């Protein structure tokens, strides 16, 4: 199409790092601007709105703690997804894996009496394992049979949702609860400790940061990480190199899904202190984690920052509801816009525009040089 105007798209050979960052940042800015415009349409002064948000989320210690608190599950699930995406495994099932982790932790909390210093680690382990197992089914189906992982992980989300609902309405329904559905409260001693009088459950945060470091090291410095990168970037070359595709892929998905499971543990043991309605536990963290991972473009360390950004968006949603009377769903608008702008700008990264000599316009095919 462009050829008629004397231009054509030429694939770029190398993308400078700063350009990638610039494009991602540009997408975020564009999303914020468009959202401001939407505010204006709804009769809310965008500048007033944003300044209220900034004041209450960033310039206020309680607000800041909320931002960080919302970032925790995003970080855990998101960094796990960074790993999965690196190997071209499109894990849309973080939502369900979070719930699986929550179930695992709740199981320990409610039915396995342990002294607190054992119980808390046990909950995290159980949550990790539960999340990992939840991700393993789609993983094996994909590697062995080529079944599309997007649909299977999505279905697992729903199955997890209904299992949790069944548990809180059925076998795990709280004895002391009438009329509502949730499990019994966990024993006070195994509630995750928080910082000061905020709701920031720091053990999960620490775990998250540890995981970031672990995954960063894994990807860049270990044999397994090397194999994961090969698998993601050139499966043929990985085969040529002798990588055991089945083993490596399942390992990494287990890790990715387990990380999401940890997020679930944090929510249930650190915030709600009981197993509750699934939508209140996961709140869309699983889907937002996808954005965290995509913005991070493959770097576990970058995921810390993208998780903070999206945590900020979540926290802003609360403020907007309370202070501006806007529905919480506006966070979905911002998130969706970020994602839309981001992928629309992908072609900018892959191609650049070059002039074409109009003397002998060639057909639109790219010559591969085969004769």
């Amino acid at each position: 199409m462009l050829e008629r105007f004397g231009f054509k798209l030429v694939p770029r050979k190398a993308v400078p790092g700063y350009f990638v960052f610039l494009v991602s940042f540009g997408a975020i800015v564009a999303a914020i601007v468009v959202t401001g415009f939407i505010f204006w349409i709804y009769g809310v002064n965008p500048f007033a709105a944003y300044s209220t948000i900034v004041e209450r989320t960033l310039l206020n210690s309680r607000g800041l703690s909320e931002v960080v608190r919302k970032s925790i599950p995003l970080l855990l699930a998101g960094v796990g997804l960074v790993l999965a995406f690196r190997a071209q495994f499109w894990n849309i099932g973080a939502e369900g894996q979070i719930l699986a982790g929550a179930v695992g932790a709740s199981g320990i909390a409610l039915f396995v009496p342990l002294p607190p210093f054992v119980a808390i680690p046990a909950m995290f382990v159980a949550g990790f394992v539960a999340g990992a197992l939840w991700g393993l089914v789609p993983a094996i189906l994909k590697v062995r049979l080529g079944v599309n992982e997007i649909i299977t992980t999505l279905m697992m989300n729903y199955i997890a949702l209904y299992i949790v609902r069944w548990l809180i309405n059925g076998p795990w329904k709280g004895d002391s609860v009438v009329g509502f559905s949730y499990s019994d409260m966990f024993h006070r001693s195994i509630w995750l400790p928080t910082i000061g009088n905020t709701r920031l459950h720091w053990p999960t945060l620490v775990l998250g940061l540890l995981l970031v470091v672990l995954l960063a090291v894994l990807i860049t410095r270990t044999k397994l990480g090397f194999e994961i990168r090969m698998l993601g970037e050139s499966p043929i070359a990985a085969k040529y190199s002798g990588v055991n595709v089945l083993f490596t892929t399942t390992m990494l998905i287990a890790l990715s899904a387990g990380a999401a499971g940890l997020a679930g543990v944090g929510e249930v043991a650190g915030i709600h202190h009981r197993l509750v309605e699934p939508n209140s536990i996961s709140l869309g963290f699983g889907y937002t984690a996808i954005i965290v991972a995509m913005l991070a473009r493959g770097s576990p360390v970058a995921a810390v920052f993208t998780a903070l950004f999206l945590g900020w968006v979540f926290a802003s949603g609360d403020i907007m509801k309370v202070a501006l009377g806007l529905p919480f769903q506006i966070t979905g608008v911002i998130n969706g816009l970020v994602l839309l702008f981001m992928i629309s700008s992908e072609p900018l990264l892959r191609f650049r525009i070059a002039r074409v000599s109009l003397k002998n316009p060639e057909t639109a095919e790219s010559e591969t040089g085969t004769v």
Partner: protein
Amino acid sequence: MELDQVTYTFARALAFSTPLLWAALGEIMAERAGVVNLGVEGMMVLGAVIGFIVSQATGLPYLGLLFAAVTGALAALIHSFIAIILGANQYISGLAITIFGLGLSGLIGRTWVGQPLQAPMKFVTVPGLSEVPILGPAFFTDQYILTYVGLVTAGLLWFVLYYTRPGLILRTVGESPVAADAVGINVKVVRMLTVVFGGCMAGIGGGYLSIAYRPSWGEGMTNGMGWIALAITIFALWDPLRAVLASFFFGAFFFLSFLLQKMFPPELLTLMPYTFTIVALTLVALGKGRRAFGSPEALGVPYKRGER
């Protein structure tokens, strides 16, 4: 269970399956042309909110439905532009539309929440046929027109897909875009048109919810139906007639889980269809049927001429 209850269940399941069917039919056509649209949920919910607002404001439910369809089509236009023209990752672009659509609809609808629709679409009861024993109450009593139109549309789409030239072109674009390109068919245009059609259908499905079935608006009232429509697309093996059965199957399960909650944990019944989808996909991948029944070969892959 008494006969009355059975026919009642059937009728309610039919009504419930209608939005699923509309959305699934649209998605089937899009995927047959080779494009995955994870934005169905977003398109449905946008259709629902706009449909409700227009109906409420004008008192004309069918006008609302029209606007719902157009809204879905517009959202699909964005998705198809990004996925087909720009060639970006179509899974993510669809997902983005869903996230965006859920948020935007919540925003737009905030002042309209909870209002009952003044002039909703009414039930119809087919005269004469509704007197027939068993079939009458099950099928011809107290349904919305959209349900019947949906069924007829399924039949029409089936006919078009397999027995007309445009259907052949559509299927080829999804199976082997190279073959289509080699005879001069513009793959990108066919795909865009089909995706926009899919968005239209999803919008109507959403509109049905807010104008007919539960004439009101509430945030996120589609409750994941768009995702179920995606599951139905696969479960129905990309065939419009099978989609009728699959939608009904899902609809029945949802309704039964409500009806039988004294006897079975409703949640466990509700999760069956999702489990079945995974099982169905596995069977398709395992069986010899894979060649005959699998997904369109070029599904999910943007077409670039010159690449093999």
